[in-house]
């Protein structure tokens, strides 16, 4: 049985070299996608704690937004990031990180997306991202 959203997501994850560099995966339950970032040494910013690099957490959140958009929009094209604001609540520890994106508004040209990342407990988020994305097909 073909499953278009699953195929859309897999195609997106396979197409982007940087997603493989991060080691990011994603799972789809119905229309709800959970992005997964297994811990890896090359993602560390502070080796003493150790803690994930703030930039890695931001990048993972941004890729989660783009992956969710590709699933929802059903387009193989990669949408363009206009701006992101990342808020850091807790250090990213040497653990698997999860993220879910919430498409707050998908307009004709621009989407507003909120993303939340957590590790051991969903109610203890480590970071949030709010961003605007220019939808491919728009200009």
């Amino acid at each position: 049985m073909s499953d278009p959203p699953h195929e859309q997501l897999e195609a997106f994850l396979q197409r982007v070299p940087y997603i493989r560099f991060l080691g990011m995966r994603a799972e789809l339950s119905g229309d709800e996608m959970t992005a997964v970032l297994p811990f890896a040494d090359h993602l560390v910013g502070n080796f003493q704690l150790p803690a994930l690099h703030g930039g890695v957490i931001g990048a993972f959140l941004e890729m989660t937004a783009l992956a969710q958009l590709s699933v929802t929009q059903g387009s193989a094209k990669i949408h363009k990031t206009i701006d992101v604001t990342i808020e850091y609540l807790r250090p990213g520890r040497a653990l698997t990180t999860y993220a879910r994106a919430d498409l707050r508004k998908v307009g004709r040209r621009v989407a507003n997306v909120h993303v939340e990342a957590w590790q051991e407990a969903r109610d203890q988020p480590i970071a949030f991202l709010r961003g605007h994305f220019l939808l491919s097909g728009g200009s």
Partner: protein
Amino acid sequence: MSVDPEFIRLAAEAMVTIAPQGRALGFRLVSSEPGRGSIEVPWREDLVGNPDTGVIAGGVVTSLLDHTCGMAILSAAKEFIATATLDLRIDYMRAAAPRAGVTAMAHCYKLTRSIAFVRAEAWDVDPSDLIATAQGAFVINRLTDAAGR
């Protein structure tokens, strides 16, 4: 209190080599002076965000900007400190050129006892033609505070 140029140099070199993420991305020190720092990341096939164009991923630019901000703070602090990002806002004005590396320059324009405020910008070829700008606030953990406790 003037800043020891040797401290700035050592701190800058440490910043680009000490973080595993910086080594994985291939960060290179461009320059460092009190309150400012610049790092570049050369283009690499596995860092591409859009395989249709060969443009470097936005996530690489995010790590680069965040890290360059940290270097600017360290060079402003006149002592070894640990920084943690509170928030970071990034505007992406345009995509980088295909197969182009990216250079970032950050300026820590205000440093209090516990917080640093930083602006940064990134370009691919021409510093006057930016691909992204960033504004961030960072928490400072001073080693002297820890020792005093």
